[in-house]
């Protein structure tokens, strides 16, 4: 399951035909380079997330795929057909895509049914009606067809936007942070439902989000964007456990970085020594270890070198901060069925399987 990898390099795993493909795509605006030399392949039927902090170019990427913006260079193809390249340009409406905007962009002067039916051009009246009814059922909006959009709750609006984007049976649906305007509970519910609906329809989905939890819980594949280029692409588990850079490691979850040293195929650190995993860096010298709280084990021990300096109760679990003497500190997470007091001495053990080694920021290994 471990991905063969070297720091700073990521090679996407090929799986099925690439359906949406971006090759060396760049896009600049007057003030900044939004996307630079971006290459991504998205498999047919996959739920793919573009994850990154604000300003990383993810929304621009989505607009480029949709055809709402034109790339400065590079090519984009959908289903093998180039839609944007040096001498090719396919209008957004000809690309067979649907889009759900962050603000939903529902037509305020139309009813729910009229909104959903808007894209059903060329349908006979009866057929269109049937299709709308089908979509309202699919998205759990039965009985709301005659409402105006301002008479709906936030969650219902999101459903209408999804139904409207799916109406013309697009091959790809683009989702631009569609859950960010919803309350936490509702967000959870709608994520699940959106995924179910899209999977049922067999639609390829591309989601843009800055929320790693959202990307992980929904996606088959995640692409992490940083400053307009792809930092890493992989399954959620790969991204979480084997980030290829400190940026990814930091962005996709809580991580501590501690100094370690490689010598004779072992790694030593303040919190213990363990054999160097086979796929990690070679050579000797100082390195940085990424340790996730769930990879840190500890038990109470009066002779332990570390002390619990902080305990944060999170509900199902407790996050502890463990201080090694005067040295580094790391975080550990434990179920809240067992509570340890602050100030207690503990012995720390790292679960070496998931620890990722980076070259030290100062001295390259």
């Amino acid at each position: 399951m471990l991905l063969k990898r070297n720091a700073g390099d990521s090679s996407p795993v090929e799986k099925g035909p690439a359906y949406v493909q971006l090759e060396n795509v760049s896009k600049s605006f007057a003030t900044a380079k939004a996307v630079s030399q971006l290459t991504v392949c998205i498999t047919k039927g996959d739920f793919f997330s573009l994850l990154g902090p604000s300003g990383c170019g993810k929304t621009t990427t989505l607009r480029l795929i949709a055809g709402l913006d034109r790339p400065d260079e590079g090519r984009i193809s959908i289903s093998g057909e180039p839609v944007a390249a040096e001498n090719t340009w396919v209008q957004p409406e000809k690309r067979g895509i649907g889009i759900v905007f962050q603000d939903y962009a529902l037509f305020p002067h139309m009813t729910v049914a009229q909104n959903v039916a808007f894209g059903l051009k060329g349908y006979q009246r009866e057929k269109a009606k049937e299709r709308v009814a089908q979509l309202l059922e699919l998205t759990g909006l039965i009985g709301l067809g005659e409402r105006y959009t301002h008479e709906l709750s936030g969650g219902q609006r999101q459903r209408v936007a999804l139904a409207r984007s799916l109406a013309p049976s697009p091959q790809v649906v683009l989702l631009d942070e569609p859950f960010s305007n919803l309350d936490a509970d509702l967000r959870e519910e709608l994520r699940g439902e959106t995924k179910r609906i899209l999977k049922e329809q067999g639609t390829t989905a591309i989601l843009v989000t800055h929320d790693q939890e959202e990307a992980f819980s929904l996606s088959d594949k995640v692409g992490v964007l940083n400053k307009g280029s792809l930092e890493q692409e992989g399954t959620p588990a790969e991204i979480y456990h084997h980030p290829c850079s400190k940026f990814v490691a930091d962005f996709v979850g809580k991580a501590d970085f501690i100094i370690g040293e490689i010598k004779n195929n072992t790694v030593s650190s303040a919190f213990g020594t363990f054999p160097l995993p086979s796929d990690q860096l070679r050579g000797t010298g100082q390195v940085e270890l990424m340790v996730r709280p769930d990879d840190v084990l500890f038990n109470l021990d009066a002779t332990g070198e570390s002390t619990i300096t902080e305990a944060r109760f999170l509900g199902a679990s407790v996050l502890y901060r463990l201080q090694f003497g005067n040295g580094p500190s790391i975080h550990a997470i434990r179920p809240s069925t067992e509570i340890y007091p602050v100030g207690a001495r503990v012995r720390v053990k790292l679960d070496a399987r998931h620890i990722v080694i980076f070259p030290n920021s100062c001295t390259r290994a």
Partner: protein
Amino acid sequence: MKTITAKRTLIKHGQGLRSLPVLPLFLAILIVLPVLVVISALLTPTWEVWSHLAQTILPEMIKNTLLLLAGVGAGTLFLGVGLAWLVTTYRFPGRKILELLLLLPMAVPTYVQGFVYMATFDIAGPLQTFLRRYFTDLTWFPEIRSGGGAILVMTLVLYPYVYLLAKAAFREQSGSLIEAARVMGYGSSHIFFRIVLPLARPSIAAGVALAIMEALADFATVRFFNFPTLSDGVIRVWHGMMDLRAASELAGLLAFAALAIVLLEHALRGRTRYYQTGGKAPGIMPVALQGWRGWLITLSCLLVVAVAFLLPLTQLAAWTWNELPRLPEGTMSVYAQLIRNTLILSLSAAFFVTICALLLASSIRLNGSSIGFLLAKLATSGYAVPGAVIAVGVIVPLSAFDHALNNLLEAWLGVTPGLLLTGSIIGLIYAYVVRFMAVSFNSVDSSLEKITPNITSAAQILGAKPWRVAWKIHLPLVAPGMLAGAILVFVDVMKELPITVMLRPFGYDTLAVWVWQMAAESIWAGASLPALAIVLVGLLPIIFLTRVASRNN
């Protein structure tokens, strides 16, 4: 449409097109031109004109203007803020309906209120006639034909501007601020003066500024009340001496007075921008007043409505009722002509203003550069300029054009077409566009706001062709705003007096002009039916306004 989308996208990403917005620039120049003409006249003063004016009417006009503005400002401030405060903080019998009724005086133009008050309260009026039965000496009765009378009359119809804006400002205030003050142990009057009033200051300043701009622009009422101000002076000089030079220099002074009001309003607003994000906390919760206190407030509000609206309405209705059976032969055809002229002017002004506003607002939005914002400000600045200034400012360039054209055609073809622009309603329409652009622009622009770039993109991605996007999405979204703006302009033009009086083609009478002429001759009954029509049509936008407000609540 593809280019539109592309441009909007650029705007979204903070890269406005740096090219000069040509259309807004053109419209802005067209609209600022009259004011520039008038101000430039002031910059090159003719000393004979000024020395003559200074020796005769100028000192009195300036004094009267200042007194009028101060009086109307203080009066509308007191009445508007006071009433707004009462209806927001107390619950008393009939509050809901009174809250709306207090807006109605807005429908009465100052000159209509003016002549009704004059007719009712002067020596020959019904009140003094009635009082004479009981008192032999009525010299204690205040003279209505005075500065005080003018201030009273204008305050009574202009306070709704302040009332409306103050009420909205009070209502927007987050209750949490007031609760915070209450928890800190402050009483309600303290809270009003220390928190509520300062927070509402920008809105109140805007309301008072609107009211005194109206007072500054009025010339008919002050003439009825024999209290000549600068606006009256411009028209007197224009009509009496037919001296365009003197009129435009005096109008320059008037324009400066208007500018002073705008600057004063900005100063009063200060640098403060009050964004209250209190969100969920309820606003000011009205306190129920029991027994006589509640009824006292009801009575005070009723008194204002009665004096400011019911009195003119019933008086006009009574005159009309008495007059109708014995109207002289041919009156009806005169009235029909008046209505026809009024409709032609109001409808065509509403049409042109709306089209200009739509072009201006949409091209500025598409252009998205900061210069567009400035141009919008310029193009909508006419609302602050008194009608007399605009009229003079329009007549100068248009008559120059007419003369140049006549000279040219005479030289070339040996014919003189006459006064093409100044002798027709083109000049009038131009002046109305200048004056009322802001009314329509704000309305159209806020409805354009609903068309987000994403809405256009969504329609496009769903396969809609450009014309379908325009017809099915854009038009339905902008149409209500255009219609609302058009109605407001229609009613404003119908009530408008100074521009119409100064620029109308010879003998081209409208309802408003007729009312003014009849009232100036003290033929109350002859003025009553047209005045009643103006007031009743003037109720339209108020009803519209309150319906929109209640829908938003």
